[in-house]
């Protein structure tokens, strides 16, 4: 693998080598140094509400069964039979107390423990030949949950999820905690686009600049109360911890009035006021900023908007959670969920879902034009000319580094991190700076696990401070051998 130090240096000064959006070598490095290390969203607890409920989700090529076991604990098992490596569960959702491999019939409880091994005595000579006791499907090396959002990391030494999110957790609450019950997640719609995964993440992180142009049509057809998409520049972008996003500036009013303005009924507003901190209330109520799109590094995004959903002046807000799952350097599987406060009135949930379908997802009128741009960009980035081009991603700063607009003060913006009104690319630069940090840093060799041998192992379970570990030793304790050498950048 060649050194990419020149590319990383260019990215850090906001001059983006265009080929990073379609480059097999860069993608190989991303797989190794981002997706084998970062916390990656896989599911929400509401998708597996009852014991035995499961969904099967991927972290790149690795399939995981994300399930709630009979004790109610959330687990993520690597979806590979310990015997010959067959995929154990071939459905993508359902409810099961056990998973049985179709090849030779090994079976596992939904907590991962092996329970059925045909002819254990006759074939292996019992425990002396194959230590069945304590064997379980390989757990994800690290599992973390925040606001019901389940994340995996393939790095057993990953910092805790809450630490990874950092101050972005403040903003995550607007999307995923509008009441003590949090959200319910529906979907996902899944489809493949011939676009590099970074483009969507960058766009949602901070691109207010594209709205007036790309999304002209949805304004023209009267989907929004605000007549001009140029209003976007009155909003602010913010970056905090491991993520950032965009906001709209709302008309004058107090917290209740502003939340009503975007279409929330009073019963939901009352719960938001009980659930959110005073600073979270102030961002909307005093400062007048309403969250819209956002991204968490590396590939998780959110969107919140409030279109008309019928022939009426009323608007209805919706929330979508989406993941840009890389397939290759030029293809991404989009997973797009609809999210809604679990305590919301049923008629609100239905109309919010309608708002989502009209705007985002596989049929969404915003998303249609976004994807067209991203596919085209990716295609153009493949050739040799793209290697000569450094795209200017320095919007918001002058050549000498001076800021075009100063950061908002604590009096102007009560949220953590750094916020600015107007168009800029601070957030895209922050996202790609993290990208560069990850690509620069080699990953430690992963431990290996010998099935049925002396070594017994599982990853550590981590749940935002709750001790969820069990009697099994941590993966660190497994006698390991280095599987491959990593060359530094």
């Amino acid at each position, binding site marked *: 693998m060649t050194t990419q130090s020149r590319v990383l240096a260019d990215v850090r000064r906001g001059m983006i080598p265009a080929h990073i959006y379609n480059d097999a070598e860069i993608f190989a490095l991303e797989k190794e140094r981002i997706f084998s290390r970062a916390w990656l969203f896989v599911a929400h607890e509401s998708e597996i509400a009852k014991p035995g409920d499961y969904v099967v989700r991927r972290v790149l090529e690795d399939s995981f069964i994300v399930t709630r076991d009979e004790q109610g604990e959330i687990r993520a098992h690597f979806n590979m039979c310990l015997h010959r490596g067959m995929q154990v569960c*071939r*459905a*993508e*959702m*359902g409810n*099961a107390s056990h998973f049985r491999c179709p090849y030779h019939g090994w079976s596992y409880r939904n907590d991962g423990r092996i329970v059925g091994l045909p002819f254990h005595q006759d074939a292996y000579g019992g425990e002396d030949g194959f230590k069945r006791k304590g064997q379980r499907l390989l757990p994800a090396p690290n599992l973390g949950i925040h606001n019901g959002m389940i994340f995996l990391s393939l790095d057993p030494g990953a910092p805790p999820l809450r630490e990874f999110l950092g101050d972005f957790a403040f903003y995550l609450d607007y999307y995923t905690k509008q009441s003590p019950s949090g959200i319910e997640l*529906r*979907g*996902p*719609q*899944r*489809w*493949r*686009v*011939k*676009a590099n995964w970074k483009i969507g993440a960058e766009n949602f992180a901070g691109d207010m600049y594209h709205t007036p142009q*790309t999304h*002209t*049509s*949805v304004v*023209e*057809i*009267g*989907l929004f109360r605000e007549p001009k998409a140029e209003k976007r520049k009155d909003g602010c972008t913010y970056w905090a911890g491991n993520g950032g996003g965009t906001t709209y500036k709302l008309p004058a009013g107090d917290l209740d009035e502003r939340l009503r303005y975007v279409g929330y009924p009073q019963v939901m507003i009352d719960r938001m006021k009980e659930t959110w901190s005073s600073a979270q209330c102030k961002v909307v109520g005093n400062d007048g900023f309403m969250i819209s799109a956002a991204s968490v590094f590396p590939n998780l995004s959110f969107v919140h908007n409030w279109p008309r*959903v*019928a*022939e009426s002046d009323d608007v209805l807000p919706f929330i979508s959670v989406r993941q840009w799952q890389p397939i290759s350097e030029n293809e991404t*599987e989009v997973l797009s969920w*609809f999210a809604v406060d679990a305590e919301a009135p049923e008629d609100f949930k*239905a109309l919010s*879902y*309608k708002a989502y*379908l*009209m705007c985002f*997802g*596989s*049929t969404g*009128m915003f*998303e*249609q*034009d976004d*994807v*067209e*741009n991203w*596919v085209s960009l990716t*295609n153009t980035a493949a050739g040799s000319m793209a290697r000569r081009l450094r795209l200017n991603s320095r919007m918001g700063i002058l050549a000498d580094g001076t800021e075009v607009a100063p950061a908002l003060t604590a009096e102007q913006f009560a949220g953590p991190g750094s916020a600015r009104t107007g168009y800029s690319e601070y957030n895209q630069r922050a996202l790609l700076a993290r990208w560069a940090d990850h690509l620069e840093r080699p990953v430690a060799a992963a431990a290996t696990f010998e099935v049925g041998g002396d070594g017994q192992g599982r990853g550590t379970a981590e749940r935002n401070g709750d001790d969820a570990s069990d009697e099994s030793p941590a993966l660190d304790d497994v006698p390991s051998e280095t599987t491959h050498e990593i060359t530094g950048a």
Partner: protein
Amino acid sequence: MNTETHSSRSVLGKHASRIQRIGTTLPFGDERHLEAHQWLVDESYLLDAQAYEQWLDLLTDDIHYLMPVRVTTALGTGFDTSPGMAHFDEDKYSLSRRVARFLTEHAWTEDPPSRLRHHLSNVRTFATPDENHLVVESATLLFRNRGDVRESSLISAGREDLLRRASSGANWQLARRTIMVDESVMRMQNLAIFL
């Protein structure tokens, strides 16, 4: 009649007509089948040509247009669509906004337009308890190509339609459509098309 339909089980289709088929497939020589088949062929040409305003006129005011999200589930699970989610779960208003958007000069995803061909087949027509309603099943294969370097993409789907006419001799209109797509993960960049 109060039986379950895909629409009645969906989030936004409670308003849709619940009229169901009765009996077996009408003979291919039956006048009702011929009318239904021709209606679908004519509609396919409108969709290929992106003549969406004319297409909208073919829909009743209480149309429910549904395309569930298909999921892979184990045999015997009892469902193969994502609960509470769909690609399309539309009424006349939301369809009219989609059509209106294509008529602006700023719907970039279809400018330049895709080359579309809806291949229609396997048409079966069923009578209903009401002579002014027919249930029609069909298969459609949509071929879509854009530009010069991108690979073409396909969507294969089965459809169940409820056709209605105001009175004997009047034109048929679409009152309910369920599109059962044959992929759990779509291989098309967006659904800026209709099926």
